[in-house]
């Protein structure tokens, strides 16, 4: 898996944005996808977003990463004993699309109900163990000697809601659907690496060569080439073959079998869907990890602006909150606030070049000087930004990676770029940037005026503007003539259009990325031929290290970590972008509800452990 982009924030309306882009937001969590909600979502979003939404808003936070179910054990309430019965309402702030299948869904809005009723993957990844893979539906797996074939041994006795037992064929079926020429969803890349994909995807054969069902509980998958992240990239959700077999793959995303009567293997089964508004679940007694405590769970969409109040009123029991909503609830006895470092980061990007249609070219002279970038970094008060604009929910980071993952480098080896105007001024002077014409701002070494345009998104609505202004203010104090590009903030979609299109006015931009849960591979955003390498930073050593991080040798975790450590140090020194912070996702949980595991993508995992304390 690669990374995902975050919508910056979702505000109330645009929370939906996020849906698409995966919401979540850099500085402030949320996403809501989308964003976004508002956003688009951040939606997302987005999606914003939201991130997307709102972001979108986008919201979402979480980047909805479909690949991995979460499991965590941040039990909300250590107190009461789990009791039987009762119901819990899980809230979200952007309407859900209603695509109740992992292979077809698009946004965070659908991923939460999916987690509730269909959590089940080959392996499990969560923040408790630094995102190491743990057995789940596959009790064990083993690589062949040539590291190309992996053999999964599946749990026995795992039941689908329709009464069928999970077998290796359900996985084979999932690969056949996703690899199929008629498949319309976005996840073909998760099976691309399997041997025989080309022929199968072209429709030349009915057989997916690399997927082999040995017996009901044994599955073999053979890859084209040996890569360190083959397993992490592989599609890991089964599909209920008996339920979906007869459905035309081209139409599957909108089939009744997915929209109205989805079948999963999670602790709750879907009993009723009110489109875009709520989904009701009832306990599934045959759940393979044990019958759930609760009788019912409801997934309910509420207005994002009211989330805090609804939680306090008991209308929803679990919901993700904005930092500004969490503050007032901190002293409330009815609500428990749980936070978790989000798998995302906000950053200040330096536009170094352009995309020429095939690859990135570093052809913008203005910021080419590394010393200038370092000076800018020292002139940004990252601690202050987290403290003031995210209510302290977040951590300043110096590597573009989640600081709770095993791959996060040793901070002590990284330049810290402390906020210090004098250091910044000194560095500018040393690099030849002096105020020649006496206007209070430095000119470049050739004596030309140096104006830096900052592009920023308008989400989250309440802090986007002051945050951008604060950054400009400290840059100006350091003697840099920094301005808001066109004097305004940009709407999420427009912002990324401009950034992706390398608008000639952009020098600095405030963006955010979400990260995949299972795999830390930065390819997709950092290589010289990645479109989404928005800074257009080209560095041979970086490309080599990224390739090395996926090599056969990197199947050894320690080696891979060393490679990434080296790469993060390179990025930290070259500084094509300044990571700002790793935000925290904040969940509000009703104090009567226990057993809730808050994890990086949602708090919906392990719903069978939820319980309601008796009054």
């Amino acid at each position, binding site marked *: *898996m690669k990374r995902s982009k975050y919508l910056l924030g979702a505000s109330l309306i645009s929370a939906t944005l996020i849906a698409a882009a995966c919401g979540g937001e850099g500085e402030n969590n949320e996403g809501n996808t989308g964003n976004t909600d508002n956003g*688009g979502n951040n939606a997302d979003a*987005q999606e914003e977003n939201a991130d997307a939404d709102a972001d979108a808003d986008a919201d979402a936070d979480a980047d909805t990463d479909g690949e991995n179910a979460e499991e965590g054990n941040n039990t909300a309430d250590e107190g009461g004993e789990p009791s039987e019965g009762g119901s819990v309402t899980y809230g979200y702030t952007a*309407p859900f699309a209603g695509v109740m299948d992992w292979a077809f869904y*698009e946004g965070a809005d659908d991923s939460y109900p999916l987690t509730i009723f269909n959590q089940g993957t080959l392996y499990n990844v969560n923040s408790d163990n630094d995102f190491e893979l743990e057995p789940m539906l596959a009790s064990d797996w083993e690589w062949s000697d040539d590291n190309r074939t992996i053999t999964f041994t599946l749990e026995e006795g795992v039941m689908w809601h329709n009464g069928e037992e999970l077998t290796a064929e359900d996985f084979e079926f999932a690969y056949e659907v996703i690899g199929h020429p008629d498949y319309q969803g976005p996840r073909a890349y998760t099976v691309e690496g399997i041997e025989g994909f080309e022929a199968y995807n072209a429709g030349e054969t009915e057989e997916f060569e690399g997927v082999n069902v040995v017996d009901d509980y044994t599955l073999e998958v053979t890859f084209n080439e040996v890569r360190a992240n083959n397993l992490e990239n592989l599609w890991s959700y089964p599909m209920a073959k008996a339920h979906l077999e007869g459905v035309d793959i081209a139409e599957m995303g909108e089939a009744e079998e997915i929209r109205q009567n989805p079948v999963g293997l999670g602790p709750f089964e879907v009993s009723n869907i009110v489109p875009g508004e709520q989904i009701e679940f009832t306990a599934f007694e045959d759940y393979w990890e044990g019958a759930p405590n609760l009788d019912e769970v409801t997934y309910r969409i509420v*207005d994002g602006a*009211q989330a805090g109040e609804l939680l306090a009123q008991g209308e929803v029991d679990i919901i993700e909150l904005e930092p500004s909503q969490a503050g007032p609830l901190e002293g409330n006895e009815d609500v428990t606030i749980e936070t978790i470092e989000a798998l995302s980061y906000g950053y200040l990007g330096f536009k170094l070049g352009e995309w020429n249609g095939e690859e990135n070219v570093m052809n913008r002279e203005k910021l080419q000087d590394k010393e200038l970038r370092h000076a800018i970094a020292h002139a940004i008060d990252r601690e202050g930004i987290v403290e003031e604009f995210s209510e302290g929910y977040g951590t300043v980071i110096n590597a573009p990676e989640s600081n709770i993952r095993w791959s996060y480098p040793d901070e002590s080896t990284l330049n810290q770029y402390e906020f210090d105007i004098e250091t910044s001024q000194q560095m500018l002077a040393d690099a030849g940037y002096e105020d020649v014409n006496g206007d209070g701002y430095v000119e470049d070494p050739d004596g030309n005026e140096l104006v830096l345009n900052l592009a920023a998104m308008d989400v989250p609505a309440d802090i986007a503007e002051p945050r951008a202004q604060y950054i400009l203010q400290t840059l100006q104090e350091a003697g840099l003539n920094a301005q808001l590009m066109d004097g305004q903030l940009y709407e999420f979609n427009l912002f990324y259009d401009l950034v992706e299109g390398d608008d000639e006015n952009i020098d600095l931009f405030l963006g955010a990325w979400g990260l995949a849960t299972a795999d830390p591979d930065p390819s997709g955003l950092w290589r010289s031929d990645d*479109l989404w390498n928005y800074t257009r930073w080209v560095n041979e050593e970086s490309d080599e290290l990224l390739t090395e991080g996926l090599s056969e040798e990197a199947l050894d975790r320690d080696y891979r970590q060393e490679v990434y450590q080296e790469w993060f140090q390179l990025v930290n020194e070259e500084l094509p972008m300044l990571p700002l912070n790793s935000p925290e996702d904040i969940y509000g949980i009703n104090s009567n509800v226990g057993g809730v595991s808050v994890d990086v993508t949602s708090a919906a995992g392990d719903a069978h452990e939820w319980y309601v304390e008796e009054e």
Partner: protein
Amino acid sequence: MLIYTLRRILIMIPILFMVSIVVFSLALAMPGDALSGQIDPTNADPEYIEERREELGLNDPIHVQYGSWAANILQWDFGRSFQHQMDVTQLIGTRLPNTILLSVMSLIITYILAFYMGKYAGRNPYTKGDYAVQGVNYLMLAIPSFVAALFAIFIFAFQLGWFPSTGSVGSGLEQGTMAYWGSKIYHTFLPALVLGMLTTASYTQFLRNDMVESAQKDYVRTARAKGTDENTIYNKHILRNSIIPIVTLFGFDIASIIGGAVIIETIFSYRGIGELLVASISNRDSAVVMAIFLMLSVATLIGNLLADLLYGIIDPRIRVG
């Protein structure tokens, strides 16, 4: 009358054509498209996005895009929602009943409020009661609906707990049962009240002014002279005459109610057309946006037509126009 009606209907065709061009251009002018929110390598890659753009025809020249869109609409095919991955007609179909329920309830609330307030003010003009009614009216007219909605939520939902603040139906109910419909109406009441209050002012004032005016008319004086009792004069002679012109306001209201619903539904998280529109705009789900805009335009046109026809029925002189 028939010819007049036909002519009005025919003239809607070029208007709709122009509206469709405006709607299409606006949708196209929004920065980004449904796919620009999808920059999400965990879910997609640039090739996939480019492929889908090609597939959806987003890379075609504008006139080609418009042509195929318009041609499809003539065949009642409004395209597919990218966000919801379903046909737009089907999607709107799932949301429309909620909006209709909301609109009908808000109209009923408007009528009830306006009838009693207008009747009282019209019968007692220039009294303290009349001024109080006017004051309330102007207040309702002046408060933006989103402010009124937030106040209503704060007071009735959060403080008093009388009504739910969000959603259009409760959970655990079987569709079609009495309890289900009860829950729907219960959920719809608060947004309908806020929406209904918006349009109440004009009705009340119309009714009041007409009654004040009618009270000066000769036939009223005659009735008084005959010794008819005051209640009969007001309820039978004046009120009946004064209500008729107000009926025509209904046509114009269709547009304003649906327009108002966009905001109200969003604030109340009430899943109707308005909320869908706002969400689709943020998601750049242009097929949905265009379909809803067209629908609103048609509703406005039909509303105006209805208003004019009702005028014509009430006042034959209008037909000439």
